[in-house]
């Protein structure tokens, strides 16, 4: 065994002796560290889950346009245009087709029945989208694919269903080409999704509030769904009541109920799109349809999620408070380590007198702190597991289900415990190395 390893095992041995001498104090430190680390990691697990980028490879190229069709009276103090588009604006943007890819989106929850079987109809959640929705969001398919732009224009009765719905209705086999009855009409299945449950539901924050426990089981062509009168089950904001009921009334109204997403591949493209939106709004004013100056917004996806406060403020507050708890636990550990190390001034003086260097003392006490940290980390792992379980039990299902324990979290927990304890032990260790051998020996 080489010298370093021998010394290391000697220091570990010394640390164990020290722990045995004051088991209460040691247990207290380990507990404090583990609680601090567990609280931080549990709240971090939730925070990480809700503040993550749902489509990191593309989020900076996806944009949400807002056009002010309601005017200054409806704006409120923030001066913001409505969060969603009315049908007229959405179809104008679709028709002009200025982005690389784009889609109008609305939420629906129709009753669905597999045509072949005589089973009970079931309610499914999903969205009405355009053909370009699938390539724009890189939606993964197990069987088949999305529909074409021709299908959009022809208002074809086609549908894409989720793997889950496919399992429920068709036992999981390739159902492309089979038919579904949706609100009394027959639709041909053109694609079956692979598992796809983006959180937050970035493409329809307005209607889902961000996180959604409802499935994404059915996607229908936007134009087809409107023509079939499939009602929106999302939010509808109106400044004037529609004259007619149902989807027909919404289509002819100024109500804002359609989410819209457009892909713009460069900064120039985004600026050009902004100019296009302003041009569109200017045209509305010139034609006399509205009386106010253009007031549009074009936010990229991260800015949009931030604007709508998708990350619940509670998760931020929790993380902050838990970090505070960790700091208190560290200060506590630091104080206890200081007391523990200084109590051993005699031992340190003796070791220094018989030739141990300051570095050796430093190594010895850092190893002792590190071992406390490691023990705290291991206990903290268990407590984090319990914490995440409690989160599942306490928090609303849509958020709680996202908080997961994975390898990254495990590694982070141990690292956090070790590093923070070493940090807490740094000052006490420094003090220990400053012990004067002569002064201590005199006291013997």
């Amino acid at each position, binding site marked *: 065994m080489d010298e370093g390893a021998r010394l290391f095992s000697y220091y570990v041995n010394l640390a164990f002796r020290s722990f045995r001498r004051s088991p209460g104090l040691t247990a207290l430190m380990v507990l404090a560290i583990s609680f601090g680390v567990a609280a931080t990691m549990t709240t971090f697990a939730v925070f990480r889950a809700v503040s993550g980028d749902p489509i990191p490879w593309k989020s900076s190229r996806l944009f949400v346009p807002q056009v002010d069709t309601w005017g200054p009276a409806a704006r409120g103090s923030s001066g913001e245009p409505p969060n969603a588009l009315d049908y007229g604006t959405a179809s104008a943007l679709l028709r002009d087709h200025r982005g690389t890819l784009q889609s109008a989106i609305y939420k629906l929850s129709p009753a669905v029945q597999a045509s072949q079987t005589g089973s009970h109809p079931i309610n499914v959640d999903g969205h009405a989208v355009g053909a370009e929705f699938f390539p724009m969001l890189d939606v993964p398919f197990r069987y088949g694919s999305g529909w074409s732009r021709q299908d959009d224009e022809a208002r074809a009765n086609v549908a894409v269903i989720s793997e889950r719905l496919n399992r429920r209705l068709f036992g999981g086999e390739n159902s492309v080409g089979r038919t579904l009855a949706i609100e009394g009409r027959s639709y041909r299945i053109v694609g079956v999704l692979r598992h796809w449950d983006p959180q937050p539901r970035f493409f329809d924050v307005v209607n889902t509030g961000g996180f959604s426990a409802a499935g994404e089981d059915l996607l229908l062509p936007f134009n087809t769904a409107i023509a079939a009168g499939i009602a929106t089950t999302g939010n509808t904001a109106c400044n004037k009541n529609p004259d007619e009921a149902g989807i027909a009334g919404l289509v002819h109204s100024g109500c804002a109920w359609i989410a819209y997403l457009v892909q713009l591949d460069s900064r120039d493209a985004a600026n050009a799109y902004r100019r296009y939106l302003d041009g569109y709004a200017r045209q509305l004013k010139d034609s006399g349809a509205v009386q106010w100056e253009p007031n549009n917004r074009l936010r990229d996806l991260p800015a949009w999620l931030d604007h709508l406060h998708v990350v619940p403020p509670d998760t931020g507050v929790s993380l902050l408070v838990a970090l505070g*708890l960790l700091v208190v636990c560290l200060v506590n550990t630091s104080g206890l380590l200081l007391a523990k190390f200084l109590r051993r001034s005699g031992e340190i003086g003796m070791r220094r007198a018989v030739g141990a260097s300051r570095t050796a003392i430093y190594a010895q006490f850092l190893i002792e702190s590190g071992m406390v940290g490691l023990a705290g980390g291991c206990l903290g792992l268990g407590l984090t597991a319990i914490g995440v379980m409690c989160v599942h039990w306490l928090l609303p299902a849509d958020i709680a289900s996202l908080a997961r324990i994975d390898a990254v979290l495990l590694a982070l927990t141990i690292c956090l415990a070790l590093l923070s304890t070493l940090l807490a032990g740094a000052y006490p260790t420094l003090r220990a190395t400053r012990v004067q051998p002569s002064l201590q020996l005199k006291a013997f």
Partner: protein
Amino acid sequence: MTVHPMISALRKHKAGVALIVLQVALTLAIVCNAIFIIGTRIERIARPTGLDEADLFLITQQWVGLGASADNMERLDAMQREDLATLRGLPEVASATPISSLPLLDSAAWNGAVDLRPVQSNASAKANFYFADEAALPTLGLRLLAGRNFEAGDVQHKPFGDVGAPAIVIVSKDLADRLFPDGDAVGKSVYLDGNAAPSRIVGITSRLQTPGINDYGAYYSVLVPSRFNSTFSRYAVRAKPGQRDAAMRAVSAALYRVNGQRVIADDGIRSYTDIRQQAYRADIGMALLMCGVSLILLCVTAAGIFGLTSFWVDQRRRQIGVRRALGARRRDVLSYFQLENLLIVGTGAMAGVALAIALNLLLISRYEMARLPVVHVLLGVLLMVCLSQLSTFIPARRAVKVEPASAIRSM
């Protein structure tokens, strides 16, 4: 006893004292804010909805195979009336009403303007509209404070989402007081959603919360005598006292029996207890989390003080022995340690109050929290001081037991 020798003794433990002061300050800052968060959440949860919540449940169901086109409206309404008759006929059911939403449901809210003049540009008040029939008051357990209830003849049926200009409405007391501070709302006319035609207020109910859980004018509600016709419908049902669970089991089968072409989802029949719990789940979770964090913090800090005081007691056995030998009473030794702790924790608490306010300001600026009331801070300081005195007491008791002779012998 003077404080001066105590301070000079503490100078010898600068680092240890500084660490305790820091720990106490941080603990106090966090605990104050945590208690405040818990308080606000409990206050929110305790808000009364105005409903008589026991025995109340909600049914949401959807008919299949019939679109919501204008031609189908009469049929959809007939089916809704058939459902209501079925529900009202069940032996476990006391009353039932069609309803567009319920307090705390946090969805399907219909918010609109209530104006005192026709086609007004700035709303006199923003309120939530509940669309229900004459059974709404008894079903929801609302009291009529003035005027009259709807009668069966008042109730219209409209396509879903059509507020129109109802001839009569009932408003909640909060809204009535807001619009007519003189208390003479009954018989007055209001204009809903910028309508040109008036709606006459025929009654005033007791408190009635709106469906949104984050609403500001949370008690501005309007009851409109109207059934909404669509492919889906929603019914609030009051079971006979104590028979809610039996009623919830019975309604599903009864509705399917009368018309099988419908979907009642797994969560289509929800007790009001469940709706309330769902609505406040995040608040309860946050309050419990803050409770847990505060508890851990106080325990860790108490244990830390305990540990350090123990260490100091051990270190000072000799001084204590000398003091005892020179005539100090046990009580003096005890009060020395208690006073020393009070000095340290007092300093920490003062820093903690400043930190608590700073943390609160940070939370206000980043997370739109309210201002921390002074009471919470004082409560936190008191809690901290008591706790630290208690955790000093045990090691200090040990110091008291040091025999004067034994301490001097070890010299």
